[in-house]
């Protein structure tokens, strides 16, 4: 109903912009209804959160490598800010759990999704389909504001007594409700805002893609990126609400003393909890959580696929291989992602029938992923490959996602999970997908669309330094984790699993060897290395906005899709005249054509 109140005001808003009267800073950059500004707002905010999430992780990695030693450089600051839990600059176990839960939450909900989906989606999708804006510009603005508020709440929760949520990003009940601090309450409230935000955003995306395609832009002429966003938006619209329901119930458990997720006979803090009515089920939370969270992981990767497809098509100078197969694959990934969720729950006492169902769907869903990757790989054949910075990141994405995806296969088999559940193998599995995978896709996207948004290029040399440094250190961080996980080292270990190491008794069979424990230190060093190689990027990013080389035309990459046919940077309302589409999205190197690219809106 929010739409009803807002959407149609757009008309008035436009009229106001038409006369190009001087706009105040506030209405232009803060309370803007222009999809491009909103995209940039999302992008910049989410990059900050990405950096913040990374910093949390660096402190955790320090603690894992050097348990009980004060965090260097920021130790005193931590103590000042957080007090007791960071006494003497040393991270206490509670604080470690705070950082862990918030690293996961921030990375997933405040950094990667807002970047890959919201930022690129808002900026690029309307341009790509030849629309003047999104369907509901006001709703769009509200979506960003909800995201921002959600972020503020999450950040604020660090500073309350006892700190932020400590139950992991999965927030399993009863643990999440039993920790006696308010962090979890803040987490839930923050999540409600974030859920609202993605709901508003994705309703808008879907409506825009269905309604505002330019004349001639048929479904099978949509750039693959738009398809990826379309499916992602559906995942968000339909999978998030059950988590919202679960969040409301957990909030009731936390605040009003109900027992949705708490069974009878529970002990709280070592005492029988007879103030609770009981009768709830801890497994219910897990089901509702994973019903969202599995589709959510595809939300993390599908926009990545989309970006990569654009960059690869552009830099091989040839059409994507198997466009239809790609489209049908993402559609089936989206569809199937709703019915595989319990593969995160194999060890919750699952019988043969259920586990058979979920193992089977999990194996089936890997097939469209294989198809997507295969199409991308084969697209390279016969191309004329330009190795510019976006392309380097896009190319690196392929094997990195490959490693992450392939290691999902063993995890999909319940019998294997007897050995690997909740170990660093799982951590490595999904980080290969989201870190050198999605983050690389995001970098590729930033380098690729930067000239459209700013009219300036980013520096290629710095970009290459950034690329090679990131690629090497990412692998140095995550590759050893497979070995650690296989050896039985578990995640969420405050002391880096020192408790379970051989050092505590030479005669213990299967204790973690010194070699495995030592990897902790190497990984941490690599993580700091990764940080150092982000500096060229951050500098490049800000410096190029003002000082970068100016682009000479609207289409510096000589691309075919519509966003490159708009003025640079596109004004409010996007296109000088409404585009008309005559052909598919990747008409590169068409035999007989004058140039090696034929824009979608070029009349035949």
């Amino acid at each position: 109903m929010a739409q009803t109140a807002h959407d149609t005001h757009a008309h008035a808003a436009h009229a106001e912009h038409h006369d190009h009267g001087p706009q105040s800073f506030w209405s232009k950059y803060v309370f803007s209804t222009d999809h491009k500004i909103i995209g940039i707002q999302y992008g910049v905010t989410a990059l900050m959160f990405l950096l913040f999430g990374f910093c949390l992780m660096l402190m955790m990695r320090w603690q894992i490598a050097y348990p009980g030693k004060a965090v260097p450089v920021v130790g005193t600051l931590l103590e000042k800010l957080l007090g007791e839990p960071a006494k003497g600059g040393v991270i206490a176990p509670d604080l470690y759990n705070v950082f862990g839960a918030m690293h996961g939450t921030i990375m997933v909900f405040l950094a990667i999704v807002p970047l890959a989906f919201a930022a690129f989606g808002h900026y690029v999708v309307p341009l790509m389909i030849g629309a003047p804006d999104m369907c509901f510009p006001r709703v769009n603005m509200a979506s960003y504001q909800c995201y921002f508020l959600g972020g503020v709440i999450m950040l604020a929760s660090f500073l309350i007594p006892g700190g932020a949520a400590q139950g992991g990003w999965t927030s399993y009940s009863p643990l999440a409700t039993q920790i006696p601090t308010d962090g979890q309450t803040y987490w839930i409230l923050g999540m409600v805002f974030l859920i609202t935000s993605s709901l508003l955003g994705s309703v808008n995306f879907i409506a825009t893609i269905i309604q505002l395609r330019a004349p001639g832009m048929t479904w099978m002429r949509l750039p693959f990126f738009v398809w990826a966003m379309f499916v992602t938006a559906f995942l968000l619209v339909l999978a998030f609400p059950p988590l919202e329901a679960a969040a409301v119930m957990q909030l009731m458990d936390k605040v009003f003393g109900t027992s949705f997720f708490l069974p009878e006979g529970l002990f709280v803090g070592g005492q029988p909890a007879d103030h609770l009515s009981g009768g709830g089920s801890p497994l219910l939370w897990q089901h509702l959580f994973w019903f969202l969270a599995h589709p959510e992981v595809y939300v993390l990767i599908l926009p990545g696929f989309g970006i990569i497809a654009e960059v690869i098509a552009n830099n091989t100078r040839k059409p994507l291989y198997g466009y239809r197969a790609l489209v049908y694959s993402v559609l089936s990934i989206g569809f199937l992602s709703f019915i595989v969720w319990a593969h995160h729950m194999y060890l919750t006492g699952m019988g043969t029938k259920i586990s058979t169902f979920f193992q089977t769907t999990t194996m089936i869903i890997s097939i469209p992923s294989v198809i997507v990757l295969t199409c991308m790989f084969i697209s390279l054949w016969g191309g004329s490959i330009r190795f510019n910075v976006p392309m380097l990141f896009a190319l690196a994405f392929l094997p990195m996602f490959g490693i992450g995806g392939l290691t999902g296969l063993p995890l999909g088999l319940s019998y294997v999970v007897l050995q690997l559940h909740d170990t660093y193998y799982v951590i490595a599995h999904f980080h290969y997908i989201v870190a050198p995978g999605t983050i690389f896709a995001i970098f590729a996207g930033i380098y690729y669309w930067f000239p459209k948004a700013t009219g300036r290029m980013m520096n290629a040399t710095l970009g290459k330094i950034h690329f090679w440094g990131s690629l090497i250190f990412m692998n140095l961080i995550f590759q050893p984790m497979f070995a650690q996980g296989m050896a039985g080292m578990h995640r969420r270990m405050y002391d880096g699993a020192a408790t379970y190491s051989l050092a505590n008794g030479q005669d213990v069979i299967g204790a973690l060897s010194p070699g495995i424990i030592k990897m902790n230190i190497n990984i941490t060093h690599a993580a700091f290395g990764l940080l150092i190689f982000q500096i060229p990027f951050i500098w490049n990013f800000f410096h190029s906005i003002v000082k970068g080389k100016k682009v000479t035309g609207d289409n510096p990459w000589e691309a075919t899709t519509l966003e490159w046919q708009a003025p640079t940077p596109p004004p409010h309302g996007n296109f000088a005249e409404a585009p008309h589409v005559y052909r598919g999205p990747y008409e590169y190197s068409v035999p007989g054509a004058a140039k090696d690219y034929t824009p979608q809106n070029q009349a035949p």
Partner: protein
Amino acid sequence: MIQKIKDLMSFPPLTSLHGEKVDDLILYVHYLMGALFLVWIVYFVYVLFRFRSGANPKASYTGYTGHVSTYMEVGVAVIEGILLVGLAIPLWRNAADEFPQERDAKGALIVDKEGKPAVTVVRVTAQQFNWNFRYPGKDGFFGKQDLKFVSNDNKFGIDPADPNAKDDVTPPLGEMAVPVNKPVIIRLTSMDVIHNYAVHPMRIMQDAIPGVSIATHFTPLKEGKYQITCAQLCGNSHYFMKGALNVLSQDKYDAWLAEKSKGAATTLE
């Protein structure tokens, strides 16, 4: 050879009967993954080299037109199907449904040649941040358990009226022992939050969830000391929640149990 591969992949030592099959399945899947990865990466490097813009300034509009990729995709699907139907599902049935028999049809304990129970049954109740173990005692019966009896003096909710409870054995917190070469059934639950009982050399891992009791089983093959890892985040001392699993010869196990059962009845109430 296989052992070499396992060492290379840092598998932990293997000391249980079914563990071999877990390892095999892990290895088979990794062979598939390795093969795929290798094929693709070789192709990838070759393509990047051959079709770099310097060497191939004019791209081909049609690109690749053969069918190898389709065969590969079908191949992957078939192999996954075989692994799933041939191994993963039957094995999981074995783990989740096919428990070793503890009693015969008449309800009498099945015993071995020496008259000792053929199957060891242990009840495990996890708590923040330790492990409680219970053994059924001489009669082989646990006392009835019901959450409605739970109170501060009766943390497991044992029915005080049940005579079977009297000889149950409760060793000290965090200490568990089982005889070697005999199937063990553990029944897991938790008092407060979700924990996870993991012993890697035995290749077992199972959530302990309050309100439900989940059973799992394994057969230890090697005497020695093992450690029980808590594999599910359960609070600020999760990392420290370690238990001891001692696999003993039958004689030593009997002695251990006898020693722990002294005064067993009093540890209850």
